[in-house]
């Protein structure tokens, strides 16, 4: 029995893998005390073999006997489980976005991660949704109703928010603004994808993969099919559990 845990910036994901290979998982908010949240979650499961990833991985290791691997490795394992032929992974989480290129054996060949700001991440979308009065869960659908008539030029979350406010005050259609916000995230990701180099199959993971507009716009821009695993937000946690199974 293997337990993978991904202590992300916005949410904590645990994934339990039984001897038979059955997967169960849970997602909670990181909250103000992510360590307490994580330890509480882990207690619920009988697994002794624990692997942690995400921002809080080292913090957890200080308090619990576990192994740590990076999100990059964890995603490679998680993605290969559903799509053994995957060669490119686009992962957009709360605070990070990453593009990972896998070699033919499925090992990490190259990767890029966003620099230290929130541009092109889930957090950026959250802030923009709030600013426009949409729920995060409906933000993508709203964006797809826009036709792409306007463009946001600021990549910086703070500047982009001012830009959105000034667009609102000029009476711009909020659906168009939503579309522009999504396009700006996609542009940011695309520049990373092109730097790393794209090869099929392309898999999209992380919480943002649940946003229909990002997936659609990425697919259109790349002209390739984008595969999304079931529950893309748990890919890292699942990858941890799978990694441990392979090790033992």
């Amino acid at each position: 029995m293997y337990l993978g845990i991904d202590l992300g910036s916005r949410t904590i994901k645990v994934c339990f893998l039984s001897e038979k290979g059955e997967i169960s998982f849970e997602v909670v908010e990181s909250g103000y005390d992510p360590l307490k949240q994580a330890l509480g979650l882990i207690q619920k499961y009988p697994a002794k073999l624990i692997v942690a990833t995400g921002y809080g991985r080292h913090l957890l290791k200080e308090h619990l006997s576990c192994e740590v691997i990076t999100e990059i490795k964890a995603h490679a394992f998680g993605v290969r489980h559903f799509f053994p032929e995957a060669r490119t992974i686009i992962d957009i989480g709360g605070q990070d976005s990453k593009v990972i290129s896998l070699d033919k054996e499925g090992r990490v060949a190259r990767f890029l991660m966003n620099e230290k700001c929130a541009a092109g991440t889930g957090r950026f979308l959250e802030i923009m949704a709030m600013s426009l009065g949409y729920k995060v869960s409906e933000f993508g659908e709203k964006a797809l109703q826009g036709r792409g008539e306007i463009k946001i030029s600021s990549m910086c979350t703070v500047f982009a928010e001012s830009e959105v406010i000034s667009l609102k005050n000029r009476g711009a259609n909020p659906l168009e603004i939503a579309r522009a916000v999504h396009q700006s995230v996609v542009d940011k990701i695309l520049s990373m994808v092109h730097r790393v180099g794209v090869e099929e199959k392309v898999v999209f993971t992380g919480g943002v993969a649940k946003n229909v507009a990002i997936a659609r716009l990425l697919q259109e821009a790349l002209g390739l099919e984008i595969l999304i695993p079931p529950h893309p937000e748990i890919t890292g946690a699942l990858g941890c559990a799978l990694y441990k199974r392979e090790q033992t």
Partner: protein
Amino acid sequence: MMNFEVKADPELWEKIGVDVTRLSKMREVLTDLYKKAFLSQKNRPEGMRYFDEVISNIHTGRIREILQAKEEGRPVVGTFCVFVPEEIIVGLEGVCIGLCGGSQGTIPDAEKVLPKNICPLVKSAYGFRIGRVCPYFQVLDVLYGETTCDAKKKNYELYAEELPTYVMEIPQMKRKVDEELWLKEVKAFKEHMEGVAKRSLTEEALHEGIKIINRKRKALQRLNELRMTENPPISGKDVLLINQISFYDDPVRFAEKVEALCEELEERVKRGEGVSERGAVRVMIAGTPMALPNWKVPNIVENSGGIIVYEESCIGSRYFNNLIPEESKDLESMLLNLTRRYMKINCACFTPNEERIQDILSAYERSKAEGIIYYSLAFCHTYNIEAYKVKRACEERGIPFLFIETDYSPEDVGQLQTRIEAFLEQIRERRS
């Protein structure tokens, strides 16, 4: 050694016009930082004690030595660059000091004047000056400037308003005309320094200067060979520290201490005794200098199961590679040899600069590194752009390559940690 502290001397600081309150605070921060980064390392060589002492005396003992030198009429020259012809200064019995520029703490001072979007090293250094937090700035006779980067070049105009500043033009191409200009600039610098020192540079004196600095560089080369061995007897962080200290310690004493350390390390190599765990990932760093106390990236690398086995940097191989031939003893040929030695430093300020890519690739082979971390300070356009060509050369050869652009702030440590760990994982996976 856990009772280590960076020493204070408020009386001395007061006398030379340092902001005593701030430097007192800063030396406490440096004490903690140093203990965590260096004294917590396992199995450190005995010979590192001297360098711990030097850091302990960074704001006190060494300053007293410099004041003593000034009393003896020896000029004190502050520098920021490996292009300063140290042999001339030392030949005139002057003291050459690489100035402080590796701390986040003084950046807000500089940003009162300088734009935010420039190199952190330039901002940090200027902040040390205008915040009066660096004792070395307070005791200079000349600030040596050079034209290797736009930010520094324009910043020297501001330094010149309050400090005797001398700017030497460094050509940025490698043609015959550039060598001619360079030689003229070396001669002009020599004359300027003769004026400051109030004596002329004799052939014997320049020859002596060349010998002293050659010996220092040779000692650092020997150290570099030892750190590249199969089971490195010294950490990359300690080697970086020694390279950082090479810029402000007394060159003769420094060379002796490095040589003594090398003897100890040679013994360790014979016994097969190393500092890192078996299987540590051998990493080469290439890029912009890491000025004291900027240990951010080496800390992450070496705390994540990596060991740095080569540093292609100004505070690294670009400083100590290549010596000046000691056979020539007439002034003209010595100055020409000196110029040619400095022209071999393949700084990214040159265009074109293919030699640097060759340097990196051959150092990679020689050090048996398993991957290259290319380190660029934010807004360092020359190194930043050149990274692309280095990356391409690495990819063509299947060399794992990671590009990092960062500054001195701690805010991206989490992200850097993930990227560096993932890079080491990627290398380990390739082994199996």
